[in-house]
C-alpha cells in the first residue's frame, strides 16, 4: 500500500495539464459572465467543496452554508482570478478558510452560551449535550471513528486542515502545500504531529478473551 499512492500519482500526472487547460478555459468563460460556465463549475466542484467543509465542521447544515458561500464568492471574485494557482486549489483554499471562520464563530457562540448559562441569563442548555448514541453505534469500530473525529476537531487548525485534506479528501502533499500556501516539508511535519497526537489519544480496541 505504501507504494500505491506515488504510483497512482504518477499514473494520474499526464491528465494534470489537460485538466489545467480545461480549468483555464472554464475560468475564461466565467470571466466573460457565462452562466453555463458557472453551472459547470458548481457541478464539477460542489462535492469537493462540500465534503471539505463537512470534514472540518461535521455538520451538514454548516457545510451547506459554507459551500454556498464559497461559490457566491467565486462568482463575485472570478474576475480577479489570475490563474497563479490551480482552480481546485483556489476552491479548496476558499472552502478551508470559510469553514475555519464558521468553526471559530461556532466555538465563540458555544463559549458565550456557556458563559451566559453559568450566570443564569438564559434558560438554554447549560453544556454540550451528552452523546446518547444508540447501543448499535457503540460498536467498537464506530466508537473509535467517533473518538477519532472528536480528536481531529481538537487539533490545531493547520494540523486539522492538513490531516483532513490528506486522509479525507485524499490530496497529495503538493496539493495540500498549495492550499495552505506552505512547503511540502511543512505539510509533512503537520501531518506527522497530527497523526502522533491522534494515535496517542486513541484507545486500543478491547479484545475479548
Amino acid at each position, binding site marked *: 500500500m505504501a507504494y500505491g499512492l506515488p504510483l497512482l500519482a504518477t499514473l494520474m500526472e499526464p491528465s494534470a495539464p489537460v485538466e489545467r487547460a480545461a480549468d483555464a478555459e472554464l475560468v475564461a468563460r466565467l470571466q466573460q459572465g457565462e452562466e453555463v460556465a458557472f453551472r459547470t463549475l458548481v457541478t464539477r466542484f460542489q462535492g469537493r467543496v*462540500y465534503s471539505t467543509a463537512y470534514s472540518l465542521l461535521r455538520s451538514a447544515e454548516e457545510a451547506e452554508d459554507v459551500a454556498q458561500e464559497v461559490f457566491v464568492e467565486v462568482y463575485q471574485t472570478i474576475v480577479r482570478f489570475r490563474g497563479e494557482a490551480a482552480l481546485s486549489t483556489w476552491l479548496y483554499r476558499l472552502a478551508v478558510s470559510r469553514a475555519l471562520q464558521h468553526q471559530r464563530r461556532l466555538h465563540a457562540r458555544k463559549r458565550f452560551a456557556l458563559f451566559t448559562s453559568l450566570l443564569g441569563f438564559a434558560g438554554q442548555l447549560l453544556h454540550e449535550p451528552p452523546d446518547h448514541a444508540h447501543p448499535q453505534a457503540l460498536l467498537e469500530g464506530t466508537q*473509535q471513528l467517533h473518538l477519532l473525529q472528536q480528536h481531529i476537531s481538537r487539533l490545531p487548525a493547520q494540523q486539522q486542515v492538513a490531516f483532513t485534506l490528506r*486522509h479525507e479528501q485524499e490530496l497529495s502533499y503538493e496539493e495540500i502545500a498549495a492550499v495552505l500556501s506552505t512547503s511540502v516539508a511543512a505539510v509533512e511535519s503537520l501531518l506527522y504531529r497530527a497523526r502522533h497526537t491522534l494515535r496517542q489519544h486513541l484507545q486500543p480496541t478491547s479484545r475479548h478473551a
Partner: protein
Amino acid sequence: MPNPDLYSGSEEEWQALLGQLRRQSQTQPQPFFYTRVQARLDAQHATPRAWLPSWLRRPAYVALLGILVLAVSGDGAALQTAHPVTHSSTLPR
C-alpha cells in the same frame, strides 16, 4: 518506528480506521445545490448596497460616536473655563 506511547492497535487497524473516516466523509450536498446557490446570489443582488457601514447604522454606535467627538473636541475644557465665572457671580458684594 513503533512507539509504545502511541495507539497500540496495529498499523492495519489504524489504516482501517482511516478508511472508515474517508468513506464517512465522502458526502454530497442535497440535490438542487446549484439552484440554492443561484437563489443566494439573486438575494444578494436584490439587497441594495447601503452607503453607510452597517455598524454606523445602529443608534447606539451613532450616540457613542457623538459622545466621543464631543469629548475629543475640547468642549470639556471650555466648560471648565466657564466655571469660575459662574462661581464668582455668587460671591457677596
